[in-house]
């Protein structure tokens, strides 16, 4: 057993020899590693090898001082509060161990991988860190990639719809090759720019699996009688369910599953308290010879999401932002002393905190025709007093903006942010007059072309009072341009159904999910690519279902957006992608398909006074970077630990 591992290691070292001496890397023998006290017993009992043998030959070295942070000490538990047992996935999201990942400045850097090469936009060579091991000590090798590709992605029982969409180019899968124990290659006939960003996703595309562990649940490898027994004792339908359940990495539920994350699940559900323990084989170290993560455990206490703010105020969480809203800020601030924490205000990552979405696929023919007239959309945007909204609802902490990129994104341009966002009722009125809505009723409300009054119902998912407040402000200003809105909160599922069917004329939702994009990230949110895009659900559905249902887009600008998106999917270089992105953003700015209000609003982040290295400012976004993930929670440490 040890022999085999050593030989493998040896092979990989030979192959990666030219790469030795890269910045930040010191040969392992030359340094003094510091063992985590948490693992002392296990190391002394020889159940774990020493640190030098646990980490890859070339671990990922995190230079904290260069990042402006302090190298830390081992120990402690980071406690967090969650509102749902499904939230165990947050540890995987926050931990953010990915094959490649975004760093603080949104650069893609190899993380689990030692490096990767892309040739011609279509040939991807991924190199695993030699000596990298799963949390159970078994080597992490090309076999784990092969197992995923051949035995999971291409097993029709485990993957009903075939390999993941990001791995298909024009419906064609890649050619997969194992070049050696530590190197794999994916080759597509055409460029696949979606591949690498997908690996870096907060919800990542997993293209590997712990094959040595999962084979016991796979019909191809397992002993039939033993597998049968396992299926019966787990009370599942067949081996596929068992394999799915035992092998789930994103929302883990199997404490025995080996992982590559900083902390691995150690509590079997159901429970209201989940403990994640440090991965003794984690591949990141700091410059002083300590293995990351610094904190030994992450503890999730699952309760009612409505209680999270109150519990946080009593100091029951060391790091908490989920389930805390901006309205809780003053309450938490007043409890800072008693609870022993600081409340930081991070920026939120949406393109707009709240966007108004005229349904271009509305059933009502009159409104549909009006929405497709760009003058109407522009007029509505001009008639929103964003400053008032920002001051009244967000204490002036937000940024008045169209629904577009945030300034932190390399794709941000001021003209996108300010397009059609100045408060100008005169021009709005003029635009509406030109659009054929000149006739008004006695109270100033315009007549629609078919003689109805211009009154419409804006539907919301009914989840926040904030939306209702903003809408009340908008309502008053829209009255001045002769359009009257009524707000109707419904329930989320019903709301979506009604928008999809076109029964809703205008809806309210948050803006772009990823407003921190770089040219290398997919611009799918800007083109009609999904039913969940509430401004054009039927066009999105048409693309999503490959033309089987929905309607093809009939506005030339929207068709252009789709063309551009498809062009991005074929692009070979970052420069090419930037050009595509900018054209798409420009169309959006000019056409106002979604009406943004305010973005960059604040997300309170509660940080224990004992916890060091948590940035005071950051962006709270799922994608890119998995909320805390981009800021490396494995480098957060407690100043009062015993070490």
């Amino acid at each position, binding site marked *: 057993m040890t022999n085999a591992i050593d030989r493998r290691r040896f092979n990989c070292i030979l192959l990666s020899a030219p790469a030795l001496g890269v910045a930040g890397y010191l040969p392992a023998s030359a340094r003094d590693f510091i063992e985590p006290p948490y693992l002392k017993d296990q190391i002394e009992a020889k159940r774990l090898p020493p640190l030098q043998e646990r980490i890859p030959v070339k671990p990922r070295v995190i230079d904290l001082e260069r990042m402006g942070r302090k190298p830390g000490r081992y120990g402690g538990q980071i*406690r967090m509060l969650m509102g749902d*047992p499904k939230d165990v996935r947050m540890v995987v999201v926050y931990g953010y161990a990915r094959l490649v990942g975004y760093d603080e400045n949104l650069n893609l850097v190899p993380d689990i991988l030692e490096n990767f090469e892309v040739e011609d936009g279509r040939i991807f060579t991924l190199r695993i860190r030699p000596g990298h091991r799963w949390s159970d000590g078994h080597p992490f090798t090309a076999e784990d990639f092969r197992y995923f590709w051949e035995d999971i992605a291409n097993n029709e029982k485990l993957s009903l*719809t075939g390999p993941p969409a990001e791995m298909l180019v024009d419906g064609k899968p890649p050619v997969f090759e194992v070049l050696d124990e530590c190197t794999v290659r994916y080759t597509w006939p055409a460029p696949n720019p979606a591949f690498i960003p997908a690996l870096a996703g907060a919800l990542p595309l997993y293209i590997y699996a712990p094959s040595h562990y999962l084979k016991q649940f796979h019909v191809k490898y397992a002993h039939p009688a033993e597998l049968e027994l396992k299926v019966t004792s787990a009370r599942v339908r067949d081996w596929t369910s068992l394999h*799915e359940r035992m092998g789930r990495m994103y929302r883990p539920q199997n404490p025995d599953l080996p992982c590559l994350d900083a902390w691995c699940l150690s509590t079997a559900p159901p429970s*209201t*308290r*989940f403990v994640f323990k440090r991965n003794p084989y984690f591949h990141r170290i700091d410059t002083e010879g300590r293995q990351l993560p610094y904190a030994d455990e992450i503890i999730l206490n699952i309760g009612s999401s409505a209680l999270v703010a109150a519990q946080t105020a009593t100091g*029951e969480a060391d790091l908490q932002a989920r389930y805390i809203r901006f309205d809780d800020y003053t309450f938490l601030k007043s409890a800072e002393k008693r609870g022993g924490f600081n409340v930081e205000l991070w920026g939120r990552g949406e393109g707009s905190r709240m966007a108004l979405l005229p349904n271009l696929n509305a059933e009502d023919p009159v409104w549909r025709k009006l929405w497709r007239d760009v003058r109407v959309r522009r007029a509505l945007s001009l008639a929103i007093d964003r400053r008032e909204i920002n001051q009244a609802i967000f204490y002036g902490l937000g940024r008045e903006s169209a629904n577009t990129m945030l300034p932190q994104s390399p794709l941000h341009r001021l003209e996108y942010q300010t397009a059609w966002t100045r408060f100008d009722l005169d021009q709005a009125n003029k635009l509406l007059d030109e659009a054929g809505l000149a006739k008004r009723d006695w109270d100033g409300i315009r007549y629609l072309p078919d003689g109805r009054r211009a009154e419409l119902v804006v539907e919301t998912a009914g989840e926040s009072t904030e939306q209702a407040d903003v809408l009340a402000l908008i309502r008053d200003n829209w009255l001045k341009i002769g359009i009257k809105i009524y707000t109707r909160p419904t329930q989320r599922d019903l709301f979506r159904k009604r928008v999809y069917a076109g029964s809703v004329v205008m809806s309210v939702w948050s803006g772009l999910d990823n407003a921190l994009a770089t040219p290398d990230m997919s611009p799918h949110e800007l083109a009609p690519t999904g039913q969940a895009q509430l401004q054009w659900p039927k066009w999105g559905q048409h693309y999503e279902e490959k033309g089987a249902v929905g309607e093809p887009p009939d506005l030339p600008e929207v068709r252009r957006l789709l063309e551009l998106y498809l062009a991005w999917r074929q692009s070979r270089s970052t420069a090419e992608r930037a050009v595509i992105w900018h054209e798409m953003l420009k169309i959006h700015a000019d056409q106002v398909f979604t009406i943004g209000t305010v973005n960059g609003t604040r997300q309170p982040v509660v940080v224990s006074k004992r916890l060091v290295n948590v940035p005071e400012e950051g962006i709270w976004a799922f*994608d890119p970077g998995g909320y805390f993930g981009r800021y490396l929670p494995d480098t957060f440490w407690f100043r009062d630990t015993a070490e």
Partner: protein
Amino acid sequence: MLLYIFRRILIMIPTLLLTSALVFTIMELPPGDYFESYMAELQAQGEGVDKARIEFLKKEYGFDKSPVERYFIWLGGLLQGDLGYSFEYQMPVSELVGSRIFLTVLVSFATILLTWLIAFPIGIYSATHQYSWGDYGLTFLGLMGIAVPNFLLALILMYFANVWFGTSIGHLMAPEYLGQPMSWAKFKSILEHMWIPVIVIGLAGTASMIRKIRANLLDELQKQYTITAKAKGLHPFKALVKYPLRSSLNFFVGGIGGILPEIVSGAEIVAIVLSLETTGPLLIKALQSQDMYLAGSFLMFLALLTVIGVLISDIALAFLDPRIRLQGRSTR
């Protein structure tokens, strides 16, 4: 009598079948299914959705079949004692409910005991001292108990318990004991936390119990036999407790049937507010997220307990109250 019990048990079968059909239909009525609301929830938080996995789960749980087929699959499972699978937790329903049942029964039992301990003396006092200051005062308190929303009281008590006694907010024990095996320290921690839910849940029940005891006892106290007994010089205690109180307790024995499901389900809203590890929040959550089998099987379990509870109280009534005659039925 035996024949009667036998007949009653037979009638339970169609009752439960009908209930199961009703439960299933109502759960099918809202638009969408668990997977759609799950996807919508993720999207609402700006998170990604793994569509392939959703497809896999849909197929695994038989969502490619018609509702009628699914109903019979579910029913077939129930008959074999298989409560089905929870989508939300991805575990068998029985394990899920089983892990919470102990604490639920503990809380409910303590609550019921508390209710009785408070309600009986007060109810009797109110009835015997009708329209006195004591009656008015206690009645006022009782009405307050009914009128104050439980969840509000729970929040207030929880806040003060935290500020004054340092009891951690929510849950039935301090966080470090969650998921740990039972120990003396854990039990102490449970006791420390349990009084809030017990008082909160018990209070409303106590108030209505007081009113019922008072009303029923008043009826009896005005009857001829009580007056006669008093006139004949029977000891006041005996003239109260032995006869009138006993016959006023029919409502109480009849209510035992309702207690059985109550013990298992607990008070849902309060339990959610307090983040208790009881079955109540489980049920509400399942209904919200359309976690069909968890909600359905749990409701069926409650239905079964209700039917059994009613049977028990009927039998108990028949034994305890000689005025109730089964033979009367046929002449009706």
